[in-house]
């Protein structure tokens, strides 16, 4: 008889596959921002008036919260990427995959605490 969990999500790989999905989502988010960021930085070639006007777009608390999300995406992608490379280049560490996953998430969350406080204050200052 089919069990309930047979009908849940396509991704049944536990922490490993969820972290893999998050790696892709954060990667796509960062490259989409990069496309826009190359263009907004390139405006500097058109002089101070043009560039400073573009940079005004960042002086907005909502945009600053999105920036916090960007920093979180870059950090997650970086720390999860380190974990992927550890397992790729030292296959024996695969025996400790679960510990590596929870360890890397602990590093990510610990880093996000001060970053959220600092960038959250910057966003509030713009209110």
């Amino acid at each position, binding site marked *: 008889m089919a069990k309930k969990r047979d009908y849940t999500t396509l991704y049944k790989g536990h922490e490993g596959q969820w972290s893999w999905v998050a790696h892709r989502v954060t990667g796509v988010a960062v490259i989409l921002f990069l496309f826009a960021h190359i263009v907004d930085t390139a405006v500097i070639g058109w002089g101070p008036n043009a560039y400073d006007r573009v940079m005004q777009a960042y002086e907005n608390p909502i945009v600053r919260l999105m920036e916090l999300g960007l920093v979180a995406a870059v950090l997650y992608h970086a720390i999860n990427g380190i974990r992927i490379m550890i397992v*790729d280049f030292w296959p024996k560490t695969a025996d400790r995959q679960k510990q590596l996953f929870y360890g890397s998430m602990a590093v990510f969350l610990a880093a996000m605490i001060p970053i959220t406080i600092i960038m959250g204050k910057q966003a509030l200052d713009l209110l």
Partner: protein
Amino acid sequence: MAVETPTKPPRSGDDYRAGRERPDGRGGEFWSWLFMRISAIVLLFLAVGHVLIMHIPAGGVSRVDFSFVATRWDNPLWRTWDWMLLTLALIHGINGLRVITLDYVRKPGLRVALNFTYYVLGFALFVLGTIIVVTFDKAKWGL
């Protein structure tokens, strides 16, 4: 016959694996796999350093205006940093989009069209960013 996908399905006992499995042999997909890891190690410093430098010191992104960038780019080290970040992040990101597209887009025509779009967009942004980083001259604006 299933459409070829670069990411093999997870094997039993492989539940906690997170990365793309290393492609067999020494073909293009192997070098793509290896490039992602080598560029990742460099980007750990360039990209993480960049977002922290821009957001964390007092003032955060509010500091960033024309004179901030002009002063920063007086130093060839920062121009080199920014150009390497531009180049490696674009190739790493576009290769990521390519791998994701090969996993989820099954129609061959759409795959080719999407990947072609990424390459054109990536090349155009690489050229734009390179011209700006290399040729920017604050003296042109009386500074």
